[in-house]
């Protein structure tokens, strides 16, 4: 307690310094308002130097080219099978019916009729909407990238579990990797591989490995000691122990890792359209830029359906508990589902052979509903135009612009002192030093103004998201069925690739800052709602009973018991919310912002690795700093509450 009090005093002193700096701004020398010239380091040139060395002098280029050739060959095979690209083995395209039937049967085998209907229906929808080719272009990359990521993640995860020192090295790398925005990954890949599907696949592989490593490590660490001892007493060698006891027992965690890999792959593959990856993402990007709302909605629905299907299928696989069967002497009976699947596939092949529309639905035959959607949307937009126009005007003139100007007006020394004060209040000297180091590096990168714009967008979005999300979460947690429903919606919304959130906001607000903020707010509100509901639901029932017996009113119960107990969980939500908004703000750059994201897009188009990585790291540092602060705070709260 004494330490906390001391922290508070020091924090107040530093806060006073920050306020002082703001108050006397007009008297400050220029070097205290913006990072002076001598402080800005040419990080980008250094990184470029390293990359030049790796690329040319070290000959890493040949290695990456070799790897990318393998990937390209695999991509060609899947492309031939899925949409009939003219490559070896020249068997494709597989008729859409076969794939739909396969998805249907997979859903049925894993979970039952409802999942079967969802997954089968998704592929039927894609075919009927005439989007087969695009969807298969997207899917062919996932089919190649996901197994690579899973294998790589599994191997690295096992290595990290074997060697504590490797884990110590890997951990900070993973932390940074998971807070780097998507675009930061693309630039080096463009340098080493170029653009196109190959580059898209490779950036997808790299991007989706970290969660697999994390889940593998977690799963291996969670294997009960007695299972391992039982394995040892059974005379298992180390290898037998790993492959037959440890990994199978960690099955659930590892498969959740696979699920995350698939979802990350989908999110990245859609975004990889920025580096020339064909498929749904590219179409969506073109249509959005041309403001063709009807068609973009159709593609959006396809991406959402695909995301939900992939998520539910892989999650059903991960969470499936083994169940004993009744061994039947008949082969046919034992392999009933397999036989049905084969029969349905044969039927689909036959149909495709005799009716061309079962092989591929052409664009003109498609049941596209883009025109009616366009018309409907026009009506809706015209109807609510006064509201959105007013909202846009109000937000821009009275909230966004003043806030942006205020953030830009602040002297950078005041910002650093403020962060130091917050850090000190939460975690003492160490946290203060971490905050100052992260933002100090951003100041030294020379992108202070751009970074401040990103910070302003994120703060306003998270604040608005909390304003919406907290009451919604508290309302949802009031009864169990409603909570379950809201959690399901949140879970589903979290599977959508971030790109999708841009469609409705562009429809409503057009291309400007308000649209960006709106998209970020929706995206960032999801984790806040989710963790608020979870936190409130998981308050121990004895505590609530005790409070009720003490005569607490509902309001007292909420404020004095449930919210304080739920706070640590809610903070996790806040943390995710900040991360999500950072990612979203950067992605939204292509609809016009002036922050780090815009610069990153420029770096991408001029393939400037150094600049791109510096900008990416600046974003990552913001995320890591928030992560550190919130984690420390939540740990402190947990310790106080004894949970």
């Amino acid at each position, binding site marked *: 307690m004494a330490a906390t009090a001391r922290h508070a005093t020091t924090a107040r002193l530093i806060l006073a310094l920050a306020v002082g700096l703001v108050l006397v701004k007009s008297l400050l020398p220029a070097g205290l308002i913006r990072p002076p010239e001598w402080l800005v380091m040419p990080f980008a040139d250094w990184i470029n130097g390293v990359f030049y060395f790796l690329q040319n002098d070290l000959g890493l280029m040949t290695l990456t080219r070799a790897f990318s050739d393998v990937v390209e060959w695999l991509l060609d095979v899947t492309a031939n099978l899925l949409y009939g690209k003219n490559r070896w083995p020249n068997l494709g395209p597989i008729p859409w019916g076969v794939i739909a039937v396969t998805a249907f049967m997979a859903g049925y085998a894993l979970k039952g009729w409802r999942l079967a209907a969802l997954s089968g229906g998704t592929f039927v929808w894609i075919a009927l909407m005439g989007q087969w080719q695009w969807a298969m272009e997207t899917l062919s990359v996932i089919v190649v990238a996901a197994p690579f990521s899973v294998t790589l993640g599994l191997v690295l995860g096992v290595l990290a579990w074997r060697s504590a020192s490797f884990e110590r090295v890997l951990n900070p790398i993973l932390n940074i990797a998971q807070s780097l925005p998507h675009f930061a990954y693309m630039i080096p890949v463009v340098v080493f591989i170029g653009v196109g599907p190959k580059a898209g696949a490779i950036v997808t592989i790299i991007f989706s490995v970290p969660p697999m490593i994390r889940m593998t490590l977690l799963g291996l660490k969670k294997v009960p000691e007695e299972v391992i001892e039982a394995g040892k007493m059974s*005379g298992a060698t180390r290898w037998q122990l790993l492959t037959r*006891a440890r990994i*199978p027992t960690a099955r659930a965690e590892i498969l959740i890792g696979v699920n995350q890999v698939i979802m990350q792959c989908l999110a990245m593959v859609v975004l990889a359209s920025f580096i020339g990856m064909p498929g749904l993402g590219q179409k969506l990007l073109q249509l959005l830029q041309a403001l063709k709302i009807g068609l973009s909605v159709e593609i959006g629905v396809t991406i959402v359906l695909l995301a939900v299907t992939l998520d539910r299928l892989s999650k059903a696989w991960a969470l499936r508990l083994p169940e004993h069967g009744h061994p039947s002497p008949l082969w046919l009976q034992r392999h009933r589902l397999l036989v049905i699947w084969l029969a349905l596939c044969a039927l689909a092949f036959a149909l495709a052979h005799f009716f061309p529309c079962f092989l591929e639905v052409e664009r003109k035959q498609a049941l596209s509903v883009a025109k009616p959607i366009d018309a409907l949307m026009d009506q809706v937009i015209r109807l609510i135009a006064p509201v959105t126009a007013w909202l846009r005007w109000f937000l821009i003139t009275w909230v966004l612009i003043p806030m942006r100007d205020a953030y830009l007006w602040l002297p950078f020394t005041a910002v650093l002192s403020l962060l130091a004060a917050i850090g000190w209040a939460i975690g003492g000297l160490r946290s203060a030093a971490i905050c100052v180091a992260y933002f100090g590096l951003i100041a030294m990168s020379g992108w202070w103004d751009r970074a401040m714009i990103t910070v302003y967008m994120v703060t306003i979005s998270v604040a608005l998201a909390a304003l919406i999300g907290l009451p919604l979460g508290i309302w949802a947690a009031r009864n169990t069925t409603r909570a379950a429903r809201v959690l399901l919606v949140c879970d589903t919304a979290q599977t959508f690739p971030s790109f999708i959130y841009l469609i409705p906001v562009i429809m409503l607000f057009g291309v400007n800052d308000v649209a960006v903020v709106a998209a970020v707010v929706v995206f960032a509100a999801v984790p806040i709602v989710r963790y608020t509901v979870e936190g409130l639901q998981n308050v121990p029932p004895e505590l609530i009973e005790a409070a009720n017996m003490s005569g607490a009113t509902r309001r007292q119960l909420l404020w004095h018991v449930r919210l304080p107990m739920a706070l640590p969980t809610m903070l996790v939500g806040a943390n995710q919310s900040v991360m999500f908004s950072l990612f979203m703000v950067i992605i939204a750059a292509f609809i016009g912002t002036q922050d780090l994201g815009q610069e990153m897009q420029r770096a991408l188009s001029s393939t400037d690795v150094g600049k791109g990585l510096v900008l990416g790291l600046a974003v990552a540092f913001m995320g890591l700093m928030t992560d550190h602060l919130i984690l420390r705070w939540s740990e402190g709260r947990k310790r106080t509450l004894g949970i």
Partner: protein
Amino acid sequence: MPVGPIPCLKWGSSVTESVITCRNVSKVFGPNPARHLADLRANPALSQSGYVHAVRDVNLDVQRGEMLVVMGLSGSGKSTLVRCLSRLVEITGGTVTIEGQDIATLSEPALIDLRRRKMGMVFQSFGLLPNRTVLDNVAFPLEMRGQDRATRYARARDMLDLVGLSGRETYFPRELSGGQQQRVGIARSLAVEPDIWFLDEPFSALDPLIRREMQDEFLRLKAMMNKTIIFITHDFDEALRLADRIAIMKDGRIEQCDTPDQIVLHPATDYVAKFTAEIDRARVVHIGSLVQPLTAPVTGDPVAANRTIRELARQLVSDPRSHIPVAGPDGRVIGAVLRQTALDVLLGDGH
């Protein structure tokens, strides 16, 4: 330690071949265990944070075919001790010898070979592999040995038969009750026909009725085979019920190691006495352990040495003789019991 009559586990038979021998076994958990142990030797009163001295200078001999129960409350080091014997943990000091071989010196392949041929172990929370069927779990040790599928499944089926789980071969562990899961654990531990059988609190996770049933089942299995058994428990009644000999542990040390009869008749320390205080000794003590050498000729029919005082209660009360002859398993009189001593035990007097 009390010097009573020679432990008469199997009256008459005298087995003396030691299968497991512990000499000054110590186990220290902490960052630098060996160093801490050396410091402790120099200064026994030393207490250093970050170190746990789980097992302290344990000396133990386990005879072939004997069932030794290690009894102690939680934190007494009993589970660590059994892991020292199977080298699931590396001991810090002393030696553990199994059939004349110091197991600390075994290479990894040799240790694996020893476990594959000679050892079986049953765990408190069963330690079953959740992704394998019952049959595959039982066949697991055989699979590790590289036996072919047909042989190992045949053997596993026999084992499941033995523990009464036939018909559940295709079930998964989570589909079974706790008692059934432990039966699978027992079947697995017996699959390789081990000479040495470790059981680490096998019935502690089960509810009392099932526990009793499993103890009976265990006694049935034990009677069927001649194995050296180390059984860990925190339940004194269980220990008395099952053991040939009991080692009572406290704070990593063995307080007393003796037959149940001797432990309830002559508890070595106050700590042991606390356990025995509430026990009905007449149910535990066999008449054989009260036998004294013949000093005068005795008359009448002898009683069998392996019957408890409780079982003989009626006869003891009504028998007119002051010295009752006692016969060993071969029917030969091995001595006599003073009726008064036996009645004291029966009525709870004397101690």
